């Protein structure tokens, strides 16, 4: 029995090096496809050579020139923005009710509202297709708006709900006891306190819709072509280099959203540090 082995002195450890090697390879596996598709999109040839022998923006130019791609881009952007807005409008109050409310059936309601996340999307797609075809909604923007909001709602409830649970209830009670009405306290005290979570939830709800494929394929029509739908249709036909440019745009939107979330998170940590002083 040696006490020295318990000391936390750093030493070169074969096991730990092997672990880092494995982690390095895993990082390569995780990031390489994303890096490769971004690099290849700046290729000047129709071949997917890597690294490109000549660089150019011709595939981005081709996208911009194509009216169909431009329209798909705008439609995706509008749809995802509206879905983010709607899922926040319904999801934030629901998350608050689930986090702070004490009423019978709360756990059941929570399970119901979060469960669309685990139901296979193809199953949701078929169910919605059956319902929407009866209502004459197939192929309309409304059908995609409703379906995407269904997927984005649990994302909002999980993220904002976690923030509400962490929130100290006494600041809200203080506002109420000083005479603020419930809506006033909610708007001026509760919501500002969870702002980073609202930003994360909005960003992730946006991405949920912006990247969605299966529901869009099932429920959409010629009037509802989103970027992912157009990629799907093209890739089934031919692997066209301009697809790498669209994919790069999708990836950049995702990374921008993640950065936004990270900035919001850090601002909260900084504020908390200031308050602690």
């Amino acid at each position, binding site marked *: *029995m040696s006490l020295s*082995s318990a000391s936390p002195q750093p030493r070169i450890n074969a*096991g730990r090096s092997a672990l880092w090697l*494995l*982690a390095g390879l*895993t990082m390569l596996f*995780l*990031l*390489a*496809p*994303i890096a*490769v*598709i971004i690099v*290849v999109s700046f290729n000047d040839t129709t071949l997917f050579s*890597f690294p490109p022998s000549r660089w150019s923006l011709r595939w981005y130019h081709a996208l911009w020139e194509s009216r169909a791609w431009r329209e798909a881009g705008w439609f995706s952007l509008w749809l995802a923005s509206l879905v983010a807005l709607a899922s926040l409008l319904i999801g934030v*109050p*629901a998350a608050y*009710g689930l986090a*702070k*409310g*004490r009423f019978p059936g709360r756990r059941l*309601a929570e399970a*119901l*509202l*979060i469960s*669309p996340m*685990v139901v*296979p999307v*193809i*199953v949701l797609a*078929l169910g*919605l297709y*059956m*319902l929407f075809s*009866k209502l004459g909604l197939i192929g309309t923007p409304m059908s995609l708006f409703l379906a995407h909001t269904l997927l984005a*709602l649990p*994302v909002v409830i*999980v993220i904002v709900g976690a923030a509400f649970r962490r929130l100290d209830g006494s*600041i809200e*009670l*203080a506002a*109420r*006891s*000083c005479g603020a009405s419930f809506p006033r306290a909610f708007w001026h005290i509760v919501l500002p306190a969870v702002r980073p979570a609202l930003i994360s939830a909005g960003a*992730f709800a946006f*991405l949920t819709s*912006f990247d969605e494929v*299966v529901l869009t394929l099932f429920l959409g029509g010629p009037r509802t072509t989103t970027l*992912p739908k157009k*990629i*799907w249709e093209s*890739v089934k036909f031919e*692997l066209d280099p301009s*697809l*790498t440019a669209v*994919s790069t745009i*999708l*990836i950049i939107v*995702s990374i921008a959203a*993640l950065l936004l979330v990270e900035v919001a998170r850090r601002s909260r940590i900084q504020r908390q540090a200031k308050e602690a002083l």
Partner: protein
Amino acid sequence: MTLVAASAVPSAKATRAWRARPGLMIAGALAFCAIVYLLPMLSLFGWAFQGPAGTGASLAQLSRLIGDDTYHYAFFTTFKIAAITTLICALIGYPYAYLMATTGPRLAMLLTAAVMIPFWTSVLARSLAWMILLGRKGIVNEWLTGWGLLERPAALLFNSIGVQIGMVHVLLPFMVLPIWSILSRLDPGLPRAARSLGASPAAAFIHVTLPLSLPGLAAGATLVFMFAIGFYITPALLGGPNDLTIASLIEMVVRDLLDWPFGAMLSLALLGLVALVFACGAAFAGAGRIAGMEGR
């Protein structure tokens, strides 16, 4: 702030009445889900069990599902893909999550970013990237043959290898995040105590750290398996004709054969399997641990 709250604490009764109010705030979301979620799920039941002429009830679709070997094959393929994906994700994901939880903040941040960026990147864009990488004239084959490691290009795409690579890429974060979540909250004093009592690093890990992190591993495995059996995009793009999964079968039955009743029955079977996997996982890891990681 605390002083104000303390001097004017509402009565217990008033607090209770006020606490009941948030219950009403879920009404909007419940109404939305009732129409856009429960109603479609109910129509699946309606279609799957409807009688021959669209009236009455019948078990014809169910007996078709049970009786035909072609459909069993799709279930078998789906389970095989899901099981292999879960196993690979666990083998790669555990050491990765362990490192993420035990290394310094800067490196941990780097490891986290490498998981989060793909996690939130379009599955379609990533599948496309794998198509460019793995094709017969793809980048991987060009490099391997160029370096003389392979004599002729290997078949990596439109077969089960391509599906497995794509699936592990998509689902690995679902394994890493729950394991990391439990390991990062583990008291580092526990393995240290084992070491101070004479255990080797390996013994301390096997007898202390690993058993304590098993619920995280179980939650991760449940999530990966559950998402893997319902996955559509990746097998459809990277797989070949032999990789027909349940999800692809549903799409085929509904869109090509226009057989809605049978598509609905297949969907219910898939839904039942997902529920079963969730129930098994919840029994082992706790439903909350699994649900908490559904942050996607």
